[in-house]
């Protein structure tokens, strides 16, 4: 059996008046059944666009301009209408930062859950309610029978997000894509939701793509990480390898920039500059203007994600895995 999901050279463009903006530019990764992957990177790196592109939910002026998304052996990029709705309702669920993207404010939780189930399955209201109750129990909502009768505004932010997790679980999907599911929540509630997601994915064998800018959150939940920068995956590998042994200068900079409680009061390691705007991506490696180990080639040739000899991580950087790391001076000579 192949991978559950294989994203290959995925490319999404937005047709804007000033020209095409390439939001993601050749994103590739794989996910096996029951595996959890973290997609991390700074604001605008293309994490959400990648998530939406997987379920073919890029709306105009955006479009998938290249690449494939093979899910369970089928390419989803060509799927439309009924076929795609079946995938989204039964096989892949999405959870967003704002629970109200999923919840309808004027319907009770019970009605929403029953309607969601009936849209994709031929079952009675009674049977649907039974499943809804079971899922609310799984996400530890107290007195679920009573809660089914209530409207979204009667729940706290953390409870709403748990209900969204319950809805995502309704059809026993093979894959959940969670886009910043706890970014708007307090840390104590974040810890609960993350543990819940993790335990459910483990017990149900569900695959997870966790999208977030918070490396520390990802480190608690996933087995693999893909780091994105300016529309590309710049490093990918096992969670422990990425965090304990980052290779790409951007990943290294990102981890070193985090205050980790070890050296209070000292200057933090800052990455100079900012991520380029996608309208204005520099030629060559898009990280080169901020990079401390760049060489001449970085200015004109875009590096591809590749295996680095001697390491388990894949990285997109010209300067890695050279026999001897040459300096600017070496190359000038």
């Amino acid at each position, binding site marked *: 059996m192949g991978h559950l999901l294989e994203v290959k050279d995925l490319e999404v463009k937005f047709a804007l008046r000033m020209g095409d903006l390439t939001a993601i530019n050749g994103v590739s990764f794989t996910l096996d059944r029951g595996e959890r992957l973290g997609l991390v990177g700074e604001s605008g790196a293309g994490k959400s666009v990648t998530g939406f592109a997987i379920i073919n939910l890029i709306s105009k002026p955006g479009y998938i301009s290249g690449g494939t998304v093979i899910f369970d052996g089928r390419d989803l990029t060509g799927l439309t209408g009924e076929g795609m709705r079946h995938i989204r309702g039964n096989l892949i669920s999405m959870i967003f930062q704002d629970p109200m993207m999923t919840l309808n404010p004027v319907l009770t939780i019970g009605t929403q859950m029953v309607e969601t189930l009936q849209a994709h399955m031929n079952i009675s209201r009674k049977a649907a309610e039974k499943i809804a109750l079971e899922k609310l129990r799984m996400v530890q909502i107290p007195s679920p029978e009573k809660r089914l009768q209530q409207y979204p505004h009667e729940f*706290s932010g953390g409870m709403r997000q748990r209900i969204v997790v319950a809805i995502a679980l309704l059809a026993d999907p093979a894959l959940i894509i969670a886009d910043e599911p706890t970014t708007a929540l307090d840390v*104590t509630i974040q810890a609960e939701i993350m543990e819940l997601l993790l335990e459910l994915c483990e017990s149900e064998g569900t695959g997870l793509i966790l999208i977030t800018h918070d490396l*520390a959150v990802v*480190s608690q939940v996933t087995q693999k990480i893909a780091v994105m920068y300016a529309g590309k995956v710049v490093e990918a590998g096992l969670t422990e390898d990425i965090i304990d042994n980052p290779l790409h200068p951007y990943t290294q900079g990102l981890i070193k920039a985090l205050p980790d409680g070890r050296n209070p009061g000292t200057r933090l390691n*800052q990455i100079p500059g900012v991520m380029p705007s996608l309208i204005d991506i520099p030629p060559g490696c898009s990280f080169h203007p901020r990079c401390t180990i760049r060489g001449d080639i970085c200015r004109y040739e875009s590096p591809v994600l590749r295996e680095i000899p001697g390491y388990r991580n894949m990285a997109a950087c010209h300067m890695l895995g050279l026999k001897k790391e040459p300096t600017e001076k070496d190359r000038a000579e």
Partner: protein
Amino acid sequence: MKDRLIDIKNLVKHFDISGGLLEQLAVSKGRIIRKQTVVRAVNDVSLFVNPGETLSVVGESGCGKSTLARTLLGLYQPDGGEIYYRGDRIDGLTQKEMLPYRAKMQMIFQDPYASLNPRMTVQQTLEEPVVFHNPSISGSEVKDRVAGVMQQVGVDPAWTDRYPHEFSGGQRQRISIARALMVDPEFVVADEPVSALDVSVQAQILNLLMDAQEQRGLTYLFITHDLSVVRHISSRVAVMYLGRVCELAPTTNLFESPGHPYTRALLSAIPDLYDRRHKYIKLKGEVPTPIDLPSGCVFHGRCPYADGRCSREIPALNHQGKAVYVACHAVEEGRI
């Protein structure tokens, strides 16, 4: 206590959100009654800030951090309590009486876009507070001061004629820090100054704030919900829960041996990059609202150590030695 820069005593700030009189009227058991809804945002908060230190205020969304800061700076009128600046009482002062303190106390906000005037260039933005607080200053002196601060905080001179919308979030935060520093303040309140920024840019701004503190001997009140940032930059920490301070302690004490049950739970919930799948303290129940404050200890409904006394009696912020203060009956009784 003259040696304290700021001393806050029993500060109270409530918001009446009942609306107009008509909206307040309701019928109950056949009679018309007037219903008032009050948000008890800050309740009986006592705190002090030493000169040159960074005191961080942490706590979950809605616990009253911003309200505390705004009341301290005179942006809201307190409903009770006292505020002292270098021993001078400053609550209840008129606008005019407050003016000299206004220049000494500056504020930086989370969203620099909302706090910068979109129609002013960077140069105008930076000149305005200088001229306001020093009406007799000459034009060339203003220019010199602007240039000096710009250089210190890394505002590129090429930016001077541009407008806020032309800058990234990190650049805008740099400009608003420069603006706060223009009038040579002693005390800066920073309300979530890096929460909207990406990690790599957050480090740039935190470094800038630490440098400015060192060069100018600034005192900070730093509000944030990011506990790793708190640990990195603060000398002391005040933990708030539902409008009250539940613990006030030097940073090392707080992180190494938190006293209050809420602090323990909060710290245990921080995801740690190097401690994968670590165990955290699970709290029961939901956070109550500041409209319906619980009786006794505001934390008792979620606290694993609560007993009868906790639901009846409000715990005072007691000295626990070594500059540590905790508001908890269980700690006071030595139960935990």
